[in-house]
C-alpha cells in the first residue's frame, strides 16, 4: 500500500511528546488537504496520534503503519490538514 504525502517529519529516536509536538507544528505549515508523513520509533505514538487527531479540530488521521526496520519497529502516521 502506498499513501500519498506532501511532507515527511522524521521523528525517529525522539521521545514522547516530541513526535506529536513537532507534527503539530509541521501540519500548520501545510496547505489545507495536504498530508504529513511522520516516522517515529516510539510505540506510544500509535495511540497518541489516534487520540490527538480525534480531539484536534484541524487534522485527520489518514492511516497508520508499522514497519520492521533493522530489528526495531517503525511507526508511521499519515495526517491530513483539514482546517
Amino acid at each position, binding site marked *: 500500500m502506498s499513501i500519498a504525502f506532501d511532507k515527511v517529519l522524521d521523528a525517529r529516536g525522539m521521545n514522547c511528546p516530541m513526535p*506529536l509536538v513537532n507534527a503539530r507544528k509541521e501540519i500548520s505549515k501545510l496547505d489545507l488537504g495536504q498530508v504529513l508523513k511522520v516516522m517515529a520509533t516510539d510505540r506510544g505514538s500509535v495511540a497518541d496520534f489516534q487520540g490527538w487527531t480525534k480531539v484536534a479540530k484541524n487534522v485527520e488521521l489518514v492511516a497508520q503503519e508499522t514497519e520492521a526496520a533493522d530489528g526495531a519497529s517503525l511507526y508511521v502516521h499519515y495526517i491530513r490538514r483539514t482546517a
Partner: protein
Amino acid sequence: MGQAITETQWSTEQLSSHLRRRHPLFVLDVRAREEFKRFPLEGPGVTGINFPYFEMLESGGLDDMVDSVVACVQRDLVQQLPQSAPILAVCAKGSTSEFVAQGLLRLGYEATTLEGGMQAWGNHYDTQTVEDSRDLGIFQISRPARGCLSYVIVVDGNAIVVDPLRHLHPYLELARARSLKVSAIIDTHSHADHISGGRALAGETGASYHLHPYDAIHPMDMVPASFAYEQLRDGQVFEFGKHQLRVLHTPGHTLGLVALLVDEKYLLSGDSIFIHSIARPDLGGQAEAWAPLHTRSLRKLLALPEPTIVLPGHFSTFEERDEQGVFQASLAKLKRDNESLVRLQRLGDADFVQFLMESLPQFIPEYVEIKRVNTGLASPAEDDAATLELGKNVCGLAQASAQGEVR
C-alpha cells in the same frame, strides 16, 4: 525546552514507599485515555485525573509543550488540581510528564514526575521479609503494579525460588547479597497473566526447574511444552536440612497447580486462595470441568491447620497487605474474612460450583498467548512481552463489589 528535568523526580522506589505508607497522592496521568483505563496507577490514598498531553497541547494551543501545559491548566484544571498537596505527573515512559511537571511548577504547584513512567512502575519490584530467622528465610518479591507475588525460601545458603516473575534481577540480587546458591526453581503452575522467569532463572543459575506435568501442556492448543523440567507430584517432599517443603496438588485454576507447604507452617498457595479472593477456574477454557476440581482442592487446603500462614500468588488491592507490608494471612483469618471461602464452608459442592460459574470475570485474550510463552511455544521480544503483561492481573474471581471494574 529540551532539558526538561525537574528537580523533583520520583523513582518507582519512592512511589512504592509512599504507597506503602498509605500517604495520599494526587496523580495527573497524561497518557491516552485507553492506556489509562487499561493500566491506571492504583494504591491506597491515590486519587487523580487523566488528561492526555495531546489534549493539553490542543487546549493550550501553543507550540511549546510547557507553555501549553500552563495555558491548559489555567483554563481547564484549576478546579481539579489540589493547591497544597503534591501532584505526581505520570505518562508512559516518564519524558512527557517532565514537561507537565515543569508547567505545574511554573504555576506554583507542588509537582513531581515519575521517572520511567508507567512502564517503569509496571516493572518495579519490592522485596518484603516474611521470616528471616537464623536458619530459615522467606521473602516475598512482588510486582506491585501487576499484583504478582513470588517467593524466595532461604535454607542453609540455598535459595529455592517459587514463581519467579519475568525480570530476574530481584532474585539474582537477593542471592548475591546473601551469598546464596539458587538451587531449585518451582512454578506452582503455568501462569496465564504473566511470563514466568522460571526457565530463564534456571538457565542463568544452573538451578533445577520444577513444574507439575499437567501444566506442561497448553490447555487450549493441547501441545506439550518444548522444554525439559523436573516433574512435581502430589505428596513429594523436598528436604533441606531440618526444613522441608511439601507439594500438594491442587488442580482447579490449572490442572497442574500445586501449593507448597514450608515446614507445615507456611502455605505458598499459588493461584488457589488469595487474601480477599480465590482464583478463577476458567483460564484454560474448561471452566465447567475445572470448577468442581477447584472446589475439591480449596476444601483440601481449608482442612490444613488454622494457624497456617497463607502466602498467595496474587493480590488485587493494597488493602490485602498486613501491617508488615506483607501479603499474608492465617488460614483461620481467611476462613472468617475471605468472602469466597466463607461461602465454600457454607455451601455444598454443587452450589459452590454454581457460585464459581456465576463469578467469572471477563476472559483476557492475551492470557492464551502468555500461556504459550510459559509452555515454551512462543518467545516474544521484550516490547511484545511487556505489552502482553500490561496492566494488573485478573487471576481472581470477580468480587461482588468490584464486578463492574473487571476489564
